[in-house]
């Protein structure tokens, strides 16, 4: 499968199965877009006739170049990784190596789009995790991780800083097990920032390998969607704290992460705003939810959203001071194809654990009782549910099998599929379309930073200062 596309004024082709990416001129792009491989030795007359605007000799020359790529395994390659039948038999043993540890099912914000029902995950019962439960969770993941050395624990909520005592004791306890069990724990935390004291900042910067700081961008956008319990805006409280944390972070990873909804489809402005606040590593994610969710991006929003991604990519072109999470695709050094078959690993490699010790496939399934997989106190772990998730890969999900982006996104989100389609295997096409657009922008940015192709013309849409120049 070959995907030809244009983005940021670049003409591009991605050879899906090999991972090869080519930057084309307009002629070879138009030619390749008409070809269904494999290519024969000579340019077919019928094909040349479809492109009468070009000289036949030039078309034949481009054909030769494309043929050369095919001969060298860089175009129209076949998928030899695994056959679809074998995909169903990929190892199902649940080697769990990553926890989303819900240390708090309570929150001090009341975000309007919250998938966790503002912290309690729809249970009506706000609580934090005690250390005994966290300790059990750590013991459980050490046992379940088998020979895997690296174990990740993300402190999540609700708002995890509301359970800072449990966080600290858990880190200390997990570290005490590392040597004996030959494990390396990597801790991350996702926080809304309200309780970021100097002490907490210092602790997080010392102990957490990554920290995700929740901010939606411009003050008006953030404060509208992320009010406090008392209905006040959170921006003025959290931004100075985030800036302080990031200033003390050194080279350690962090992301300032926002959510965009149908109410701010001009989210490129929010990314720009976050960059202007001094945040280098930025992510904004589309709000997800069922079809009747007032904030989730809908199919009719896609043209606007895709244009906004392209606008954002143009804005970030050549800028070294901003790293937008979804445009950060390393074509050459990314994960192996084995990793790319299965994606997030929810329900098998990765699970969420609630303050009660209940185990769910991931944070987004928490509260859906039919997906409760067990509990860390009795060691139960439902292999039927786990196998259902382990079976999800780019060969078993019907839409992925036909999708050019399958090895970049690796199958999408089971929770999102369930919300929209009632089925973890049936892809949420709206999310898929946004993902494809982000990837096209990311690949085009790669081409531009490599000095290939032609730089896109300036985008003057919406400009009121140079009337008549376009």
């Amino acid at each position, binding site marked *: 499968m070959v995907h030809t596309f244009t983005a940021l004024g670049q003409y591009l082709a991605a050879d899906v199965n090999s*991972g090869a*990416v080519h930057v084309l001129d307009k002629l*070879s792009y138009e030619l390749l877009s008409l070809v269904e491989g494999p290519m024969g030795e000579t340019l077919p007359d019928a094909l040349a006739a479809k492109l009468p605007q070009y000289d036949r000799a030039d078309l034949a020359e481009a054909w030769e*170049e494309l043929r050369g*790529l095919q001969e060298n395994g*860089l175009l129209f390659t076949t998928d030899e990784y695994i056959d679809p039948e074998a995909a169903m038999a990929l190892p199902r043993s649940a080697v769990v190596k990553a926890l989303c540890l819900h240390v708090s099912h309570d929150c001090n914000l009341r975000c309007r789009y919250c998938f966790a029902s503002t912290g309690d995950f729809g249970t009506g019962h706000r609580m934090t995790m005690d250390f005994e439960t966290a300790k059990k969770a750590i013991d459980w993941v050490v046992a379940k991780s088998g020979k895997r*050395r690296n174990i990740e624990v993300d402190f999540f909520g609700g708002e995890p800083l509301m359970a800072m005592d449990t966080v600290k004791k858990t880190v200390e306890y997990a570290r005490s097990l590392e040597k004996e069990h030959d494990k390396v724990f990597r801790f991350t935390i996702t926080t809304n920032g309200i309780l970021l004291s100097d002490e907490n900042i210092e602790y997080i910067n010392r102990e957490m390998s990554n920290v995700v700081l929740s901010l939606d961008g411009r003050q008006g956008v953030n404060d509208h969607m992320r009010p406090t319990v008392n209905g006040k805006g959170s921006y003025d409280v959290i931004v100075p704290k985030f800036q302080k944390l990031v200033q003390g972070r050194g080279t350690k990873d962090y992301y300032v992460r926002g959510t965009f909804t149908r109410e701010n489809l001009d989210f490129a402005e929010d990314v720009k705003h976050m960059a202007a606040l001094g945040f280098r590593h930025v992510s904004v994610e589309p709000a997800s939810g069922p079809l009747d969710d007032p904030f989730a991006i809908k199919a009719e929003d896609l043209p606007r959203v895709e244009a906004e991604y392209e606008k954002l990519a143009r804005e970030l072109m050549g800028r070294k001071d901003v790293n937008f999470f979804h445009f950060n695709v390393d074509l050459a*050094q990314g994960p192996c194809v084995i*990793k*790319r078959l299965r994606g997030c690993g929810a329900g098998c490699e990765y699970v969420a654990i609630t303050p009660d010790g209940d185990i769910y496939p991931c944070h987004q399934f928490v509260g859906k009782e039919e997906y409760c997989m067990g509990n860390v106190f009795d060691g139960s772990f439902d292999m039927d549910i786990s196998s259902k998730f382990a079976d999800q890969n780019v060969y078993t999900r019907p839409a992925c099998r036909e999708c050019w982006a399958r090895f970049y996104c690796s199958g999408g989100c089971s929770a999102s599929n369930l919300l929209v389609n009632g089925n973890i295997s049936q892809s949420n096409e709206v999310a898929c379309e946004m993902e494809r657009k982000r990837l096209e922008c990311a690949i085009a940015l790669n081409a531009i930073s490599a000095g290939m192709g032609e730089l896109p013309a300036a985008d003057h849409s919406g400009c009121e200062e140079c009337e008549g120049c376009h």
Partner: protein
Amino acid sequence: MKHIQTLNGATLKASAAKGGCGECQTSCQSACKTSCTVANQKCENNK
């Protein structure tokens, strides 16, 4: 070549031979918590 420049070779295919150690970060843990992009993750063996 006059018409085409190759930005990236057949790296995916090459990775199949030595991949699968499972030590890399779980993608959803890194920043998104809602949507998947695996291609922006790091390989533990390329550090």
